[in-house]
């Protein structure tokens, strides 16, 4: 497949060069188009400066930072438990998933592990936030491509998931529920039954989206073969998550590394796609939502009894050391490199967010596409502004 991708890219480059020669001869003047910072396709404040030739992109420069909040600096003046409130806001659609790797890193440094029940519930909430996040992507995908109906279905069904998250954590968007050593609370009564019904609804939503969008010829013609990322390029740029798996790399951090979470206790599948184009990226995400519903369904059946919080001191001081923990977040690999010097707060936290790497490929990827394809490719790469800018 990589060969095919390479060949496509080469032919692409050749055709671009030919075009450029023609333009040089005709001396056609280009146009610089500012996409953003306020533009519907950037869902946030991303600015893409595109130099166009007709409707074809010649050169592109994504300019981010309009939302840079300096979380890496802010963590240095916060205590460990306070940091989760910050990192919640990185990928604001899958907030809970942001907290987990940081908490795991702190726990690793302290040498403690959350009780088994807490690990299970963490995994459930992690997967729920993935569903909430990616189901919105599936709807938004339609809007970016001009189909307005799917997004309402996405909002409708995502609401059930948000209600679940709210029921368990008290917060719809920013739960701040994870604690060093476990969770703030146990699950409320009746939550598990509710979860089962919601997971069924979400699977039906996936079927609907598959019918409405993925089976549509126009959708396919808009996404197939658009924005092809070959395997080795994806690795070089540090693409992660569905973007990497859509390029044929069978790598999922949930499966391939051992963390004190419950993914290894259930039966699920890592989906990959050989094509590496926009369609593949969208398709892999659709399958991931389905797998997530399966994971959640299996996990709610096997939650072990016990406490949700291990014994931790009231004032959390993390021993000196360094730890790197990354998880497979909705957007891709999210990791925290935490340096502790035995203080109340971290000495330095490097936040490795998925979208930053995923977006850094755009200057390479958007060269030579048409203006509508910018939108397709940006939508299929799936970034959250907070996740790029941190």
């Amino acid at each position, binding site marked *: 497949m990589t060969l095919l991708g390479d060949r496509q890219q080469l032919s692409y480059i050749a055709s671009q060069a030919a075009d450029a020669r023609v333009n040089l001869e005709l001396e056609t003047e280009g*146009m610089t*188009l500012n996409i953003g910072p306020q533009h*519907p396709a950037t869902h946030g404040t991303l600015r893409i400066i595109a130099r166009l030739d007709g409707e074809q992109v010649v050169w592109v420069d994504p300019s981010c930072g309009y939302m840079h909040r300096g979380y890496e600096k802010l963590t240095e003046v916060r205590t460990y438990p306070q940091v989760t409130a910050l990192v919640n806001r990185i990928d604001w659609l899958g907030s809970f998933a942001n907290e987990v790797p940081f908490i795991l890193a702190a726990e690793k440094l302290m040498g403690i592990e959350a009780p088994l029940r807490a690990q299970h519930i963490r995994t459930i909430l992690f997967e729920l936030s993935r569903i909430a996040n990616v189901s919105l992507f599936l709807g938004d995908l*339609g809007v*970016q*491509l001009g189909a*307005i109906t799917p997004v309402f279905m996405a909002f409708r069904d995502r609401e059930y998931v948000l209600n679940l998250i709210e029921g368990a954590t008290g917060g719809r968007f920013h739960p701040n529920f994870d604690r060093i050593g476990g969770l703030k609370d146990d699950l409320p009564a009746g939550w598990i039954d509710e979860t089962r019904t919601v997971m069924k609804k979400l699977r039906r939503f996936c079927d609907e989206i598959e019918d409405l969008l993925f089976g549509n010829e126009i959708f396919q*013609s808009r996404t197939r073969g658009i924005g092809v990322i070959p395997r080795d390029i994806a690795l070089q740029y540090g693409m992660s998550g569905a973007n990497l798996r859509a390029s044929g790399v069978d790598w999922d951090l949930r499966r391939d590394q051992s963390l004190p979470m419950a993914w290894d206790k259930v039966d699920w599948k890592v989906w990959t796609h050989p094509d590496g184009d926009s369609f593949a990226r969208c398709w892999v995400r659709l399958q991931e939502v389905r797998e997530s519903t399966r994971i959640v369904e299996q996990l709610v059946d096997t939650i072990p009894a016990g406490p949700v919080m291990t014994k931790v001191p009231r004032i959390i001081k993390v021993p000196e050391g360094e730890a790197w923990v990354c998880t497979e977040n909705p957007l891709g690999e999210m990791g925290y490199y935490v340096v502790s010097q035995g203080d109340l707060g971290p000495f330095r936290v490097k936040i490795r967010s998925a979208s930053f790497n995923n977006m850094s490929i755009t200057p390479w990827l958007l060269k030579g596409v048409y203006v*509508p394809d910018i939108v397709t490719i940006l939508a299929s790469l799936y970034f959250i502004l907070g996740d790029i800018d941190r």
Partner: protein
Amino acid sequence: MNTVSLIIAEVPYWGQSLLRVLGGLVAVLLPAGTIVYLFLFKMMSFMQSRLGPMEAGPYGSMQLFAEVGKWLQKEDIYPARADKFIFKLAPLIVLASTFLLVVVVPFGPDAWFTNFEAGIFYALAVSSISVLGILIAGWSSANKYSLLGGLRAAGQLIAYELPMVLAVIGVVIQAGTMNLQGIVLAQNSGSMFGFDGLGNPYVLTQFVGFVIFMISVQAELTQAPFDMPVAESELVSGYMTEYSGFRFLIFFIGEFATAGVFAMIASVLFLGGWAVPFSWFGWTTMDSVDNWMNLAGPLILFTKMMVIMFLVMWVRFSYPRLREDQLQRFAWKVLIPISLVNIMLTAILKVAF
């Protein structure tokens, strides 16, 4: 000449003109309002599992008036670097083409504004005037998105004019006339294989032509999946980006009024227009049609128009958008060859039978 025409003939010329203007306004604005409320507000909402407007009037039926009131109150903004005269002219051109278009639509045996011999020819010619309006709107806005949108609209509307004309030719061959009234007559007094209970609506015999015509109408009206000129996720709103208040309202009315008029023309061409099959009431020619059809005809046409609009809107709400080059390829490589073959077959069959 029957009585209605006689009554009209006795009205002085200025009175006739006034009646025509009023009739034209009703014929343009009423369908536009109905389409916006029924389809854009309600049908879209129900398809998207929401209720749509519910506050203004029963079931939000007065919402449109509220919206119009809102737009009328808004400040009339134009960009500093805009070409102001042209910028202000553009929406009027778009709306004018709609009014020019509606004059050839027959609403009843005697209820028409004009009865051109080459009615359909005129309609197809006039319908492309709106391209001018859109193009200069895009150009004069001094906005790159608008310019791209305007150019896309120009390219698209020109590309789809051709299959539309070619699709209509099949109808013209079969009916043997370019007069829209004649086409209505031919459909409703005709028969299929000796069975005249349904007349001969060309949607059955010219089905290929109907499909091509509907696709072209979809593109001509810049409705999804052919809405690249306004593509809100790429070009924000294309040529309409810089328009606000009343001028945006005119574009908005123009969009849906044109949709309504095109749906009327489609129902005249393919669904039998204002008439019901003549055999139901034993009519044979246009003159033998009863007078009450001048009142019932507009309602029948309106119903048929709504059916057509339902199809247009259904597609609009469920399909993603094509890309500009794919659209051009579709027009030139698929629609035009098929419609040419359709013309050929129609001509052969016409001669054979």
